[in-house]
């Protein structure tokens, strides 16, 4: 009607008033000179911040934290290095008044000046050559001064703790280094232009306190240069990490070991430049292995495997994540209630919670609680189940439909099974098998509590289940494993599991997965799917097992339907698996904030069991060797059987 306002959103002209909290960008040295150093730093920064991109999409929310420090630090980092250099000169469309005002403001309140500048010049993002920048700077001298003042507090800080830098310049955070560089350059500029006429004129105009500040600026600039030089020499001294001798290796206390871990990792990440002459890479990795075992309390075998699976940057993140418990999560029982109702009921009992993430509609994360979460009347009435976030994933990947026949081969204590039943809406049949009879009892309790009525709970050895029943539409195999993904739950794993345990588990898992496939019905209209999952992160228990199944049965890998997670390994340590193994998904404590988990989804496309060509060949060879008749008979029998089946 009468509205003439233009409601269309205006394009943003630059970063907002509050977006900038750091001093203006640095003037980089010419590419040739600083190039090497910068590259090095960038590489280090990359390695420090390596995080899978999925992190934002998947995983469990981390509890809200006060992050004043870290966030400002990050901004410093990003601002100084990645932001394109902004023109520090008034555009033609900016009024001359602004320019005239500037000098006054600078002396009085440098901070304000920064922000103002941000607003008025923010729209110019084009990069400039150094020359033009310098030319313009000569007009805009006061800005450079502003830099000096804003830089001074950090410099003062640094003055107080040079001792730290003496020891380990390697650890110096990037932001500090950047600042340093920045200050250096601004200091240079200051000295270059100190004699310019502009400056002198201004100084006459200045108020007394402004003069004072200018003087202190000059003093601080001097100081800075000195400390700068000092620092540089120290840096050169301790740039390289000294390889310790045998006594030092054994005798170090925990703090030293921790420091050494970081040193060795940074050396290994940039081995060419940082290594000590004559030391091989394996010497460094051996030292790292020894230190990690000592610091985190793992046995050597397990740590070796971890080092093979994870990159060095990830490894320490993972080990640290293993030391802390994962957040407590619950799953709403959709058979009895809805998530919102559960959340309301729990909030009224003084529980602090949040949805687990966008990927699940039934999960809630508990941050804190005044009552025991496992004993509220809602829990007893079966409105929710306490369950790790990772346990949702295999069930979501299996996605059982209503009126199907579903099998959970290793069911206890029933978290995943009851989730299956909830997705099936209590229709069809759910077979929950658990070998251990004591653990099967927990199944009974949980199934009844959660109101599951379509279940049959039985206790067989999973490896013989195909003798009991076949023709399932979907099978979930959450195989027993070493538990290397849930170290935070059971730290005993760290020291106890050795090669033999992993080998045994792997064999058991291979038997189980073949049985699970045999139980499936390839002809099922809706299904024929198997989901294989473990709470281990070792490829021996995951990719190798699935690969074995692919070679022994008529199955193929299909996408899991989970939109986050790291793809599985298609090859590992020279072993080459089936290329489709990248369709499997891995989940890690450090990147997804849930237990370490592996999920693979397989589809069975034929009920016949392929005969291994090699075996037949061998038999034929032995036929030549002598026992011709016997084996011929065997073969014909085999062929007949095959024909019958087909």
């Amino acid at each position, binding site marked *: 009607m009468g509205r003439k306002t233009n409601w269309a959103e205006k394009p943003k002209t630059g970063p907002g008033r509050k977006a900038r909290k750091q001093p203006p960008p640095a003037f980089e040295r010419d590419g040739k000179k600083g190039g090497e150093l910068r590259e090095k730093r960038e590489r280090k920064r990359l390695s420090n911040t390596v995080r899978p991109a999925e992190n934002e999409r998947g995983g469990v929310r981390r509890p809200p934290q006060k992050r004043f420090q870290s966030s400002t630090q990050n901004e410093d980092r990003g601002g100084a290095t990645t932001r394109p250099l902004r023109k520090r000169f008034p555009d033609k469309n900016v009024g001359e008044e602004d320019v005239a005002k500037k000098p006054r403001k600078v002396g009085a309140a440098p901070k304000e000046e920064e922000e103002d500048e941000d607003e008025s010049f923010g729209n110019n993002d084009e990069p400039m050559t150094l020359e033009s920048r310098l030319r313009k700077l000569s007009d805009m001298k006061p800005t450079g001064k502003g830099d000096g003042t804003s830089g001074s507090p950090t410099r003062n800080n640094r003055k107080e703790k040079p001792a730290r830098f003496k020891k380990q310049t390697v650890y110096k955070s990037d932001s500090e280094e950047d600042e340093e560089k920045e200050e250096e350059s601004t200091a240079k500029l200051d000295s270059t232009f100190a004699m310019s006429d502009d400056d002198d004129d201004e100084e006459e105009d200045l108020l007394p306190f402004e003069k004072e500040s200018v003087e202190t600026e000059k003093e601080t600039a001097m100081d800075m240069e000195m400390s700068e030089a000092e620092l540089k020499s120290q840096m050169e001294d301790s740039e390289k990490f000294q390889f310790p001798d045998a006594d030092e290796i054994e005798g170090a206390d925990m703090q030293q070991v921790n420091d050494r871990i970081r040193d060795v990792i940074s050396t290994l990440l940039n081995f060419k430049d940082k290594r000590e002459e004559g030391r091989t890479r394996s010497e460094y990795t051996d030292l790292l292995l020894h230190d990690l075992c000592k610091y985190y309390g793992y046995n050597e075998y397990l740590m070796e495997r971890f080092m093979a699976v994870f990159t060095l940057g990830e490894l320490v993140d993972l080990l640290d994540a293993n030391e802390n418990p994962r957040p407590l999560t619950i799953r709403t029982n959709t058979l009895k209630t809805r998530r919102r109702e559960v959340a309301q009921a729990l909030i009224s009992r003084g529980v602090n919670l949040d949805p687990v993430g966008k990927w699940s509609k039934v999960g809630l994360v508990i941050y804190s609680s005044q009552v025991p979460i*496992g*004993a509220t*009347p*809602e829990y*007893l*009435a079966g409105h929710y189940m306490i369950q790790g976030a990772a346990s949702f994933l295999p069930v979501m990947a299996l996605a059982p439909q209503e009126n199907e*026949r579903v099998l959970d081969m290793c069911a206890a204590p029933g978290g995943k099974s009851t989730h299956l039943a909830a997705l099936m809406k209590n229709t069809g*049949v759910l*077979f929950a098998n*658990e070998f251990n*009879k*004591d653990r*099967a*009892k*927990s*199944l*009974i*309790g949980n*199934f*009844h*509590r959660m*109101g599951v*009525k*379509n*279940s*049959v*709970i*039985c*206790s*067989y050895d999973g490896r013989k289940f195909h003798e*009991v*029943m076949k023709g399932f539409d979907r099978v979930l195999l959450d195989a027993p494993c070493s538990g290397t993904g849930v170290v935070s739950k059971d730290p005993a794993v760290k020291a106890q599991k050795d090669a033999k345990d992993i080998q045994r588990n792997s064999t058991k898992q291979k038997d189980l997965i073949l049985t699970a496939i045999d139980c499936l019905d390839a002809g099922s209209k809706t299904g024929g799917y198997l989901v294989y999952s473990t709470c281990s992160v070792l490829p021996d228990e995951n990719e190798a097992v699935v690969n074995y199944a692919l070679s022994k049965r008529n199955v193929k890998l299909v996408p899991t339907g989970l939109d986050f997670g790291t793809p599985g390994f298609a090859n590992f340590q020279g072993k080459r698996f089936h290329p489709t193994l990248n369709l499997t998904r891995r989940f890690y404590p450090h990147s997804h904030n849930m237990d370490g988990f592996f999920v693979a989804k397989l589809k069975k496309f034929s009920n016949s069991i392929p005969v291994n060509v090699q075996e037949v060949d061998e038999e034929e060879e032995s036929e030549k060797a002598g026992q011709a008749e016997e084996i011929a008979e065997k073969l014909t029998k085999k062929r007949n059987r095959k024909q019958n089946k087909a």
Partner: protein
Amino acid sequence: MRPLTEEETRIFFEKLVKYIGENIKILIDRPDGPYCFRLNKERVFYVSEEIMKKAGNVARENLVSLGTCMGKFTKSKKFRLHVTALDYLAPYAQGKMWLKPSAEQQFLYGHNVMKSGLGRISESVDRYQGVILYSMNDLPLGFGTAAKSTSDCRHSDPGTIVCFHQSDIGEYIRSEDTLT
């Protein structure tokens, strides 16, 4: 796994009638296909026939549970209802009691219900009739036997017991191993 004998059926139904009365018919004639009662290891399971047939593949000693466990026969051939039957008892219950939040916790730890903890009671509950206990926001908590009829309850002291505890959902935690 076998069907109940006539004697067993009689004992079992007698018990069930105390709680849900005439509604026992609804359990047997269901619109969503036939259901049946089956006995395995002295426990009575209530399960749809379709599932029961499939469970026939499982050997007796390996079968742990199927459908819903209603309760078990004691050695002296009496029938004890388990809390697992609550899902089927609660919707068809005839006598109901609602507990105040303060008494809720007491009952969930296995205590009898006092008059002081009684929030509401349904009409015409007879003495020694089976009642289902609810929290004030209609969450079924368990079942018991009325120690007093509705009219007696009105005039009794706050300290008198109005309901004897039989089973409550706290058992899911307290006695998970002996649940069935």
